[in-house]
């Protein structure tokens, strides 16, 4: 559509004072945290959880629950944005940066993308740059509490600068690749990169 059609009678909510924090088409969900997933929520005991980083790395590595939590970790606060149009400001996550895990495995020449896998079989693809330099986290707490199963516990990926489906729940593996390989939602019509500020919701969005 070339012109932008005003909807008769629609005024919308009062514009939030911190409107600049909301990417286009998003609304502030406040302290509520909507739950969306495409498959049954798995109950994964800590002792049966682990995370492997492999593919185009120098030395594949697997962390179990205790090994992950014994790493130097931190709590960081982010605004998160879901493609279904809710945003949640100031959500704090406790975990380790993906970068710090890649320091253990190394990154092989030619690695350009990462495919994140969940224990459910869910996958999502990301450019490698989007998970480096403290832009992505592997977390086990949200807002000071252990991550609930419906939010991806025991451990999920958090990539706050991309739509939240990229932040795979029930994270089990990060696979480094020399090409882009579509994940679950991406094969089902959603965007390969998913930058909320450019409103890259669906395949075909610029």
């Amino acid at each position, binding site marked *: *559509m070339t012109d*932008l*059609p*005003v*909807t*008769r*009678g*629609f*005024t*919308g*909510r009062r*514009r939030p004072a911190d409107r600049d924090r909301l990417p*286009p*088409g998003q*609304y502030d*969900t406040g*302290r*509520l*945290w*909507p*739950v*969306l*997933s*495409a*498959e*049954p*929520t*798995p109950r994964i005991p800590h002792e049966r959880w682990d995370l492997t980083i492999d593919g185009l790395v120098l030395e594949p590595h697997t962390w179990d629950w205790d090994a992950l939590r014994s790493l130097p970790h931190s709590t960081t606060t982010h605004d998160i944005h879901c493609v*279904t*149009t809710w945003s949640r400001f100031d959500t704090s996550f406790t975990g380790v940066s993906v970068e710090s895990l890649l320091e253990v495995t190394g990154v092989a020449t030619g690695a350009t993308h990462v495919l994140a896998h969940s224990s*459910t*079989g*869910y996958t999502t693809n990301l450019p490698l740059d989007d998970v480096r330099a403290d832009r992505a986290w592997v977390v086990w707490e949200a807002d000071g509490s252990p991550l*609930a199963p*419906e*939010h991806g516990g025991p451990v999920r990926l958090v990539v706050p600068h991309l739509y939240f489906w990229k932040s795979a729940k029930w994270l089990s593996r990060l696979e480094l690749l020399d090409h882009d390989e579509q994940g*679950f*939602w991406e*094969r*089902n*019509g959603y965007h390969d990169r998913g930058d909320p500020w450019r409103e890259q919701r*669906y*395949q*075909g969005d610029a």
Partner: protein
Amino acid sequence: MPDLPGVSDGSGPSGWELATVRAVDHPLEGYVRLRLEVPGEARRHLAGQHYVVRLRADDGYTAQRSYSTASAPGDPLVELMVERMPDGEVSGFLHDEVRVGDTFELRGPIGRWFVWDGETPAVAFAGGSGVVPIVSMLRHAVGLGRPDLLRVVVVGRSLDALPYVDELRATGAFVALTRENLGSRVAAPPYPEELAPLVAGAEVAFVCGGVGFAGYATRELEDLGVASSAIRVEQFGVTG
């Protein structure tokens, strides 16, 4: 996770279009039903897909929400059944303000996962407003002359709180009410022995409803021997 056969391509979002409201009614408390005409060719969606509604204020402010369609794939109009959410910015507008002839932006169809191909034996569990995409699937099954391929389980508090309940019952859906009796069935969630014959033989299961319902339904399905990988979930709702 593999795609269902026959739905790996075809429909997809094609950008925003201007939809015209052709019918509005309020068939039950808390719900508005809209039937929308979209220009160009008849909509080609798959049973279970959703559309995005975008409203635009005169200062450029927009709000958009996703709604499943109840239309069967061949329906020339896109039917939405929208539940009013507390303080709902979009649902409140659709309930209170929209009238026939109005236009707003629409995008879709979207989603190639929560869809039924019309061929695979399936069971669908719906809770409350989660019936909407299941109605699309059921209409599809009826239109194909194969209602036997899709068994439907619907759970609601009461008859007057369940959208499409008459249509669902008329096409053979099993309805369990939790707060009032239905005929000789005393108010209760579905019993495993009620579900087992409906689940038997299903190769894919669809679950649509709130977070609590989705958890309940997937546990029941797994207890009845359905593999997690065969269960497709569309859930909504929040945690505090």
